[in-house]
């Protein structure tokens, strides 16, 4: 079953919290993974692997560089679920 946009944001926030210790409330759509959340490339890949597993989607490496903000990732996952 596809997750709603709100579910994806909440799930992503949990993954980011597990990986970085950041509060889930800090993981807002407008935030940039690198500039605002200070997530390095290896943590970003860990988050991607965990998101793929949690939401049952595939996020090819070439697409990861386009996921600048949390909302980019949420939109990508919502769309990928429907594919």
């Amino acid at each position: 079953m596809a997750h709603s946009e709100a579910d994806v944001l909440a799930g992503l926030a949990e993954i980011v919290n597990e990986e970085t210790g950041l509060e889930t409330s800090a993981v807002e759509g407008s935030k940039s993974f690198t500039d605002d959340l200070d997530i390095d490339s290896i943590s970003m890949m860990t988050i991607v692997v965990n998101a793929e597993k949690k939401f049952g989607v595939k996020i090819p490496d070439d697409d990861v560089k386009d996921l600048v903000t949390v909302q980019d990732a949420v939109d990508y996952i919502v769309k990928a679920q429907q594919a």
Partner: protein
Amino acid sequence: MSSTVVVTGLGAVTPLGATAAETWQAALAGTPGAHTLDNDWAEKYEIPVDFAATVPAEFTADKLKKVEAKRLDPSSRFALVSAREALADAGLRSEDGTSDLDPERTSVSWATGIGGVWTLLDAWDTLREEGSRRVMPLTVPMLMPNGPAAAIGMDIAARAGVQTVVSACASSTESLGQAYEMISSGRADVVVAGGSESAIHPITLAAFSSMRALSRRTDSPETASRPYDVDRDGFVMGEGSGAVVLESEEHARARGARVYAQLAGWGLSNDSHHITANEPAGVHALRAMRLALQQGGLEPGDLAHVNAHATSTPVGDIPESIAINQLLGGHVDSALVSGTKSMTGHLLGGAGAVEAIFTILALHNRLAPPTINISEVDPKVNLNIVRDTPAELPAGDLAALSNSFGFGGHNAVVAFKTA
């Protein structure tokens, strides 16, 4: 001019205790660390050994941040917890994690026997069951043998070199020796030295069982590790970490640090005889002990105590006992010998560091820890063994050795003197 090397801080996470002090107290009380494992490994994989000396989860719980722990193999978690304890004990780390250490004069000399075996094998399971996309990006830095050293180095910003010794069960005695070199040659003022291991896994139990190295005393795990006993039948797997802060005497005195003991010297040799079996007459082990005494300006008669490698294997305990006996000569009765693996089990790459801590505390407290589980000493062993209860060491200037030997023929010995 070479610098004198002193011990100013101790930290440990072992099957006996969550700290160096707890481990020491449990050892003095003769506490066995081994127990039947609370899992189905023996049954599931038909492993003939179902016991080991594990570190209870509560010993490290809450000592690392969740995110910190998640990014580290268990061997690195043990390492970081014990290193922080040792630095705090040395007065070099405040509660908020800050320190006044000069990064370019601070080093780490760490050791492991096996490295991140849990991380490697968990990743292998993930690969087989879920495919390569699910293998975590941090797998490589978590499994590499220098992972524990790097974790400590980053924690304290050690920039005078962060090195890792891998020489099986001699690893963390050798890492103390390499730390000695760093300080005595003037390359560093402070070195966090030691070793850690977390390798109690079905694959290691199966592999060590396959070579008949492990005790099979499944009906009585707590008495299975019995160095020098006539009925010893193998070692008992242990896990954990030992950390020692070594410092140049000038640096320690200048800041008014408490000094536990002096690391007077160390010896290194190799059997180059057989990949696992010791050279049977202990010739090269003896040479390593002599080299350690020589570097420390010590004589056999100065020795009040020896913490023996003594793993409780039928073959391994004898060459070392011959070598110690030959080293001591006419002084064999005045040096008290302890086999503390009877309590801790065998921490592999962590063993030497934990046993060095016992040796340092034995000199500092003038009390040699016991060897438990000996019903009858093997008649081939002619040593003054401390059995069942601690034994007092005399007053005055004393010296002690801690021996470690490893697969590959590695012989490493550290010599300590009372401060």
